[in-house]
């Protein structure tokens, strides 16, 4: 039984997270599409964590090189994604104050 539960729990995560992503994005005003796309772009920067683990386990120089590249790219995704999104959303705040 335990093995079956272990097999199914990722599938449940998959299903629930899938619905969640759908729910988060639906009914979003068009003006937020670009910032939100940028925001989700930042969120998948979590790949950095995986790249760190991959590099941490590397034993051969080739694995180290590929792992190094992975961490480099992952860090770029996370950091770049954050600041691009932040800059975009910063503008939103100021516009909201003046408008409406």
């Amino acid at each position, binding site marked *: 039984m335990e093995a079956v539960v272990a097999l199914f729990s990722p599938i449940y995560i998959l299903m629930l997270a899938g619905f969640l992503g759908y729910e988060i994005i639906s009914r979003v005003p068009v003006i937020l599409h670009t910032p939100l796309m940028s925001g989700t772009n930042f969120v998948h920067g979590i790949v950095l964590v995986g790249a760190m683990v991959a590099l941490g386990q590397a034993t051969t120089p080739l694995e180290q090189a590929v792992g190094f590249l992975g961490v480099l790219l992952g860090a770029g995704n996370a950091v770049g994604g954050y600041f691009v999104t932040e800059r975009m959303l910063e503008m939103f705040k100021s516009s*909201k104050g003046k408008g409406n």
Partner: protein
Amino acid sequence: MDYLLETVYFCTAVLFIVGLKRMSHPTTARSGIVWAGGGMVLATLLSFAHPQITAHLNVTNYVLMLIAIGVGGGIAWWGAKKVAMTAMPQMIAIYNGMGGGAAACIAAVELLKDHGHEAAAPGTHTLLMAAAGALIGAVSFSGSVVAFGKLQELKFFKNDAKFRFPGQQKVNAAIFFLAVLAGIVIAVAHTSNGGLITVFFLLALAFGAMMALPIGGADMPVVISLFNAFTGLAVALEGFVLLNSAMIIAGIIVGSSGTMLTFMMAKAMNRSVANVLFSNWAALGSGEAQEVKGSLKPMEPADAAIQMAYAAKVIIVPGYGMAVAQAQHKIWEMSKLLIERGTEVKFAIHPVAGRMPGHMNVLLAEAGVPYDLIADMDEINEEFSTADVALVIGANDVVNPAARTDKSSPIYGMPILNVDHAKNVQVIKRGKGVGFAGIENALFFADNTRMVYGDAQKVAAGLIQGIKDLG
């Protein structure tokens, strides 16, 4: 340590979800990214002590890790801070590509590892997931780089037609099929053969580039959004390989929300996603677009200013050209003068103005234009017939009437702003060149259209002066 790490990953997932939820509402959007950012920092810091790393404790790897984070993060930080707001779409593309590349690298390390007869060697299904993630991640990487090149208008990517050849779909399908085959062979045979793995990655990279190359620049937002969803999926797959719950949850959420967003964007442009991807524009139109009749009639800014100053209603249609010239501040200054004179001024925004949904709203907000003066296409399209002057600034394809009438036109069917219905049309344009879609615009040749040539910022200054001179 396991418990602590899992708890932190769990918190990270929660922070991501709350962050995204907040980002989907204008008033809380700003704080949303901070929440998500907190989650990221937490997860990254704790991952230095990940048991899968500490088990192989290797100081060199730690040093490499720190250097990679410093260099990668540093360059990205510098790029994100320095880039102009107009260049945001391609920045998103390139950072997204980096994520896809990182996912592919994780898979590469996993596949290259010679597990031999270790008891803990990964099973076939794990390797299959690693290979699938590698394929999707590599496609996202090379595709995003191409998208970046196109939006940045690098010379090499300038001419879309250059990358179209007969039987392209079949060639692409063949490359994709070979890549999938190579991935399956690698996973099923449990091989860590460097040659085969290299071929696999090259095929995947080639497919991504081939997929994005023939797509026209105006369709790029949809493509970038799709690659964003791809990267999410790749991250989730590698998350399953590494049994990393934060990666699984974040990846799946991005995958599904990104897919949704892709469809919503395509809908806003009245194009289906399949249409964007598989029937490139050259194949759509039956060759030459209809001949454009009439002539271009130039106008001086001073005359344009007089026409607007005595108009009852002016609708301004800002396009990417205005953003590039950084003219939004001057245009708003001019609008304020017109409003003082009693002219009704409105801004009409096409769904894809500025290359991405919502991009132009951000740029106008930056200039201080109040929200109630900005109208979406659906709200304002009826009003053009009541406007005395429609002022088009650096917009082209989104006001091209050929989209309504000319079946052979590559942009046929795209909803456009009905600028041609206005009594007078003024077009501020840098030169006589064609738009992003690479076609002539019949609007510019119409009898009631006048062309005001020049840099948008300088012309706007001229318009302001012209209105002020009237006293």
